[in-house]
């Protein structure tokens, strides 16, 4: 894949595992497309052509208000957000006056996400009155859960060095943040220990967060598929770099065969 944006070169490591993994650690994924503000989209009723294009796959429509509050009396505003949800509520499309996002809590693979994003972009082309997006972002929130094993054994030692070095006691919170930046895009990587307190009667389970947000700015509509592909590739390279072989082996086994 040849570089189209300067930001494509921000992550230099390349993974050979793109088609290897059978399962994932993904808790949430979102593709957000921002476009020049169109006040009409913040009105009470969403565009009928957009509703018609999406209602088969996303039959539940919610509406919410977004308020902007800021310092000073004049810094307030509000607009509507139209949210289209799939029947099982695992996929959502949000439309507001300056952005469109496709989110899921049930990620099954990039091909499915890509197809849904392009379907929504096709429907949006007719209503956004613009031939470019000001910003396209692709963000994956992964939570690595290693079962009974120490989660640091599943994470690249470069990330967990302060913990594994045993130089410190009583670490109460641990995390890191790296912002990669180019003229036409960037990548924000946030990671850290996360305590899962799902079971009230058990001690919290230690998990590891890998939050990767990659984006490109000023992307024409025709370049959108290429931008999504290249951002996914970048996010995956960074994700794979963050793991050890133990985690990779876990991801490579089929979830159906690993139980019991």
């Amino acid at each position, binding site marked *: 894949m040849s570089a189209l944006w300067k930001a494509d070169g921000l992550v230099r490591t390349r993974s050979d595992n793109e088609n290897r993994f059978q399962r994932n650690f993904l808790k949430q994924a979102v593709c957000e497309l921002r*476009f020049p503000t*169109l006040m009409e989209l913040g009105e009470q009723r969403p565009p009928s052509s957009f509703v018609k294009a999406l209602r088969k796959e*996303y039959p*539940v429509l919610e*509406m919410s208000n977004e308020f902007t509050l800021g310092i000073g009396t004049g810094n*307030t505003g509000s607009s509507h957000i139209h949210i289209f949800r799939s029947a099982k509520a695992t996929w959502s499309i949000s439309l507001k006056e300056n952005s469109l996002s496709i989110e899921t809590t049930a990620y099954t693979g990039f091909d499915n996400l890509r197809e849904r994003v392009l379907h929504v972009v096709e429907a949006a082309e007719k209503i956004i009155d613009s031939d470019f997006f000001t910003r396209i972002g692709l*963000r994956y929130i992964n939570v690595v859960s290693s079962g009974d094993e120490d989660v640091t054994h599943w994470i690249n030692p470069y990330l967990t060095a302060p913990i594994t070095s045993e130089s410190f006691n009583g670490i109460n919170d641990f995390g890191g943040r790296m912002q990669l930046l180019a003229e036409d895009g960037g990548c924000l990587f946030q990671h850290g220990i996360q305590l899962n307190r799902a079971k009230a009667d058990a001690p919290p389970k230690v998990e590891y967060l890998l939050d990767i947000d990659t984006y490109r700015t000023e992307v024409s509509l025709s370049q959108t598929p290429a931008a999504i592909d290249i951002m996914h590739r970048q996010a995956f390279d960074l994700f794979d770099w963050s793991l050890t072989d133990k985690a990779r082996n876990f991801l490579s086994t089929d979830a159906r065969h690993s139980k019991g």
Partner: protein
Amino acid sequence: MDFYVAVTPAPSPSGFYASQAASGRRSSTANAYGATRFLANDYPGLNIGARDMDATEKLPSSARQVDATALLPKSADIVSFRAPAHERPAEGKEAEVSKIAEARIRLLAIKYANDSISAEIIARLEILNSRLIERSPRVTVEQINSLESSIVSVKAIEQSRLERAKRLGLQI
């Protein structure tokens, strides 16, 4: 014409996310566009909220639910949404210019009411400015043609004056 942006008084939890994003707490140029935001779902286990306040925007789960089909406009009350320029029926040039100017004023009102302005508003203002200049230029083609013909006329008069002076042996 309504110069003011409508503000709904009832507060909503989503506003707090928006307010933090709008406050521009991180000053780096890297954040001019902010982070990719979730609008519809929330990942409840995320414990990096404080570090990531610009990144994720959530909506209240109690948002009113309605069937999508019910929100489709009825034939009697269809409000035509803004179609692309080439699909729009031909309408008076003045009406179109007025529509563009109105949209521009709404955005300018937001711009001047806020300390910070998003890249999306700037982009739309640029689009509207160029459309306005194209459809209602400050100097029209007719005015330019008129000025050019005046110049031609002045030159012709000057030429004939020179020829007359030469013919009559007059000093200029």
